[in-house]
């Protein structure tokens, strides 16, 4: 489990575009838990793909990315308070 957070400068039109693209890419790999925070359950291959994609998208003069590696025991390291608790990608998914 990797926690991906980003900060994209949206002053320019190009910045807004980058923000959209970063968000879209993250949505493909994980769950949006807060506005610019994603929890991604990925295997090593998928992680390399996601990271490369993100690094290519951003402008490292203006934007930043931060990754937190939570490992296989990620459930012990996450606590949620408040609205929209999200789903557990390894738990039972019944809608």
């Amino acid at each position, binding site marked *: 489990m990797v926690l991906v957070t980003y900060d994209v400068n949206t002053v320019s039109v190009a910045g807004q575009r980058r923000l959209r693209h970063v968000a879209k890419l993250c949505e*493909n790999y994980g*769950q949006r838990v807060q506005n610019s925070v994603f929890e991604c359950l990925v295997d090593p291959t*998928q992680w390399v793909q996601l990271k490369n994609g993100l690094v290519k998208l951003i402008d490292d003069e203006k934007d930043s990315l931060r990754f937190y590696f939570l490992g296989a025991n990620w459930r012990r390291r996450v606590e949620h308070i408040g609205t929209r608790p999200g*789903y557990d*990608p*390894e738990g039972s*998914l*019944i*809608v």
Partner: protein
Amino acid sequence: MKKLLNTLFVMTQGAYLAKKGETVVVKVEREERLRLPIHNLEGICCFGNVSCSPFLMGLCGERGVGLSFFSESGRFMARSIGAISGNVLLRKAQYRLSEDGDNSAKLARNMIVAKIANCRTSIRRGVRDAHVLDNRTLETCSDRLTVILAELKKTMDLASLRGKEGEAARAYFSAFGNLITSQAEDFSFHGRNRRPPQDNVNALLSFVYTLLCHDVSNALEGVGLDPQVGFLHRDRPGRASLALDLMEELRPLIADRLVLSLINRRQVSPSGFIVRESGGVIMDEQTRKKVLGAYQKRKQDEFRHPFLDEKISLGLLPYCQSLLLARFLRGDLPEYPPLRWR
């Protein structure tokens, strides 16, 4: 080793599944209920009035995610699969073997022996773990299964194998009811019946078997085998014979134990079952969700595979056995090692 991925169950009536990028979106009344990446999924099971966009079906086919449709009460209706994939040579080897009565019988015997042995283990565990009221019936049954196992030592043709299998199944199911220790009055069991199931226990068993069949079919597809061409079960259009073959040895461990613990731990209650005019018994939605949840949880339990000698989750068993079967068909293994539960 492959990672055990999750299965999405959609039970909300009127839900709509769509593709958005690489993710599956579940919409209920046009409102997004859940959105999750397809790479976390191994299968999607839709119950009742659940529709699905063609693009999502395409994505599932491409990524090898099993997409199955069930009626609201859990009867299997349809499965969508992508392009025919996998190894032609392997499939041809499978067809050749299924045409070859003697060798089919040898393979089928391995599977049946494992099934009967696993049934016996299940019964013995029941006797040991719980305070079972009627030990005699269970012990008689366990002895009977031992006798049948001994008889299976000599080679025989498919017809007599099926006979022995039926005999063992009858013995097993006649004693199965004695493994139910709590709520015994509401969950009395006197043998297997289906289409439709006539009592609560049979309803539970049928439902869990259907789920298992979905998983086994997917696993077989996943390693490139044809789930319809079986060895023990005869070919019949629309029947996943090989999946049924492979299920035999997995049933006692994965399905039967689950049903027993659901009842004995009072996770299901008799009020969750509805008797229809026809005499058939179905479960209400709440109960079905509970069973699904328990099934998913059971799949995550760790288990040491006796042949691979590796710790795997129970949910990967269908995949492991499919893999071993494929290896045998390719000639990499001298014999198919069925799953023996100890």
